[in-house]
């Protein structure tokens, strides 16, 4: 059929089907593109509406939003982000410091140590950690982990009390920054482990075999051929985990004692975070209070956005070598 040639619009040159078949192409393409644009619009709208609804509260603030420690927007209208932002950053970094070594170990276990038949199911087991809802971790943390950490907290204080993080008077453990950070660490472990595992699995087999052929032990092979290759992936995985930890709300809202001060003494009952404060204070906030919480949410949004964008840029640069599963 010489006449049945496809034309540029993807339809057929014969008269009958062209009208019926291809008139859906334009609208369909429009819908698909539109959906993508909607996603971009939502991201923009989040920023716009958080800013616009925060402004009245920020104008009513009688103190400096960036340096004030206390959070009294409902009554005296003095509130600031300083103590909350400090708590968010420190507890997340602490969680990251606890989670990253374990997660890298887990990733190596799945990718290079576990028997091959067991690797996939065991990896799934670790992924299940991510399926446990945040509020359940909070409940678990309050009833199980907090009492469990009493002894170790007192021991750390007694024996390593010279170290600023473990210093403080009359340590009894309980609801501390440390307890919250341990729960955060458990919650971000699966994402760091999953991404690191994907990266380690992509390490060039040739290099690994060459290292083994030269007589390297398994650890030496991993150090020479796997870790250097995986480093950028692990770094970006850790940063994604950091972003998660900063935004984590309910678990720390149940554990942190909701104080408003700045201290590095992680064994004392002084801890709070932006997200935990939003969850704890929202129910009883008046108009100014809610605006203030929206302002603090905006700060959290900006911080996590920066961390995530940096992490994604590192991953995307790596994609030139091969796709990561992230």
């Amino acid at each position, binding site marked *: 059929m010489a006449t049945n040639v496809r034309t540029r619009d993807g339809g057929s040159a014969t008269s009958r089907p062209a009208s019926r078949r291809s008139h859906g192409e334009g609208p369909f393409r429009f819908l698909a593109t539109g*959906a993508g644009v909607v996603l971009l619009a939502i991201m923009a709208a989040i920023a716009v509406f958080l800013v616009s609804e925060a402004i009245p509260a920020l104008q009513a603030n009688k103190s400096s939003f960036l340096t004030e420690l206390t959070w009294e927007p409902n009554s005296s209208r003095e509130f600031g982000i300083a103590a909350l932002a400090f708590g968010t950053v420190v507890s997340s970094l602490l969680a990251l410091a606890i989670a990253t070594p374990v997660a890298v170990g*887990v990733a190596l276990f799945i990718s290079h*140590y576990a028997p091959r038949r067991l690797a996939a199911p065991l990896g799934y087991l670790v992924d299940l950690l991510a*399926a*446990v809802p945040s509020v359940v971790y909070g409940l678990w943390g309050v009833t199980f982990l907090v009492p469990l950490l009493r002894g170790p907290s007192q021991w750390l204080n007694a024996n390593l009390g010279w170290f600023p993080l473990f210093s403080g008077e009359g340590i009894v453990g309980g609801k501390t920054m440390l307890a919250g950070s341990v729960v955060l660490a458990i919650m971000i472990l699966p994402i760091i482990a999953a991404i690191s595992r994907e990266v380690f699995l992509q390490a060039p087999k040739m290099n690994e075999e060459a290292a083994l052929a030269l007589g390297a032990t398994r650890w030496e092979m991993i150090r020479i051929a796997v870790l250097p290759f995986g480093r950028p992936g692990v770094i970006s995985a850790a940063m994604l985990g950091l972003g998660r930890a900063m935004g984590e709300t309910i678990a720390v809202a149940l554990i942190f004692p909701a104080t408003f001060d700045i201290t590095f003494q992680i064994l004392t009952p002084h801890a709070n975070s932006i997200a935990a404060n939003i969850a704890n204070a929202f129910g009883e906030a008046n108009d100014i209070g809610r605006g203030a919480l929206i302002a603090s949410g905006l700060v959290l949004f900006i911080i996590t956005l920066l961390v995530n964008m940096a992490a994604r840029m590192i991953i995307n640069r790596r994609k030139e070598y091969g796709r990561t599963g992230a």
Partner: protein
Amino acid sequence: MTTIQHISTSRRIKDRVVQGLVYLAFALAVVPLVSVLWLVISNGLARFDMEFLTHSMNGIGARDANGGAYHAIIGTLEQVLLASLISVPIGLLTAIYLVEYGNGGRLSRSISFFVDVMTGVPSVVAGLFVFAFWILFLGFQFSGWAGALALAILMMPTVVRSAEEMLRLVPTDLREASYALGVPKWRTIVKVVLPTAFTGIVTGVMLAVARVAGETAPLLMTVFFTNSINNDPFNGPQMGLPLFVFDQAARPNDTAVDRAWTGALTLILIVMLLNLVARLIAWWRSPARGR
């Protein structure tokens, strides 16, 4: 004549130590999972009865041992369903755009980048956004629908990513065969590409649902809170199962804490079931079973 040298003791010890540490790391990761599941099951079974599943907290005093989470379960199911109805079409269409129409242009690259960034939006921020936009700016009241909006924002990036991955797995040959028969591109996508990727997309959607079903923070400022049954997600405050757990856990009475554990058990059962079914579908369909 030297034969192959023994590996020196120090190297061997180091190798063994690292192996021990790697095994230890895995054990450390599994311990909390086992501990959480054990405590949830052992503490949650006490109140896991018909009354819990069929009654609300309406008129239950502070020290009463009865009462249940029916209102919260209904709320969660409705909110998650509505969130899926919003996020699945948008997410799927975005994935189709990225795979079939984007061609690596500037728009598709920025959408792809911001989908990744969106996965990192804290759930509490999504809740605050819906509160600021839907309730403060547009003037609607707290409702299950507002909660669904927040959950939809959290679901979208997950749906896009998983659907995109599945669409990319569809062989180009299939598309070209369809084009060769004179089928236009959009009908090829609807009739050939989507059916081929269907189970994979279902898996991704279910994992996304499982992820948001456990979210508490965005519900706090969108569906707010209620003790009684509200079947209408569009009118008035609702409850959600995660919110129920959060609320009961913060109360001082043991009876409330018992209800919190049972709520947690119900929630984990729902989430794990969704996860398991999703993984089974994925496993059943995967061409090369197991890696």
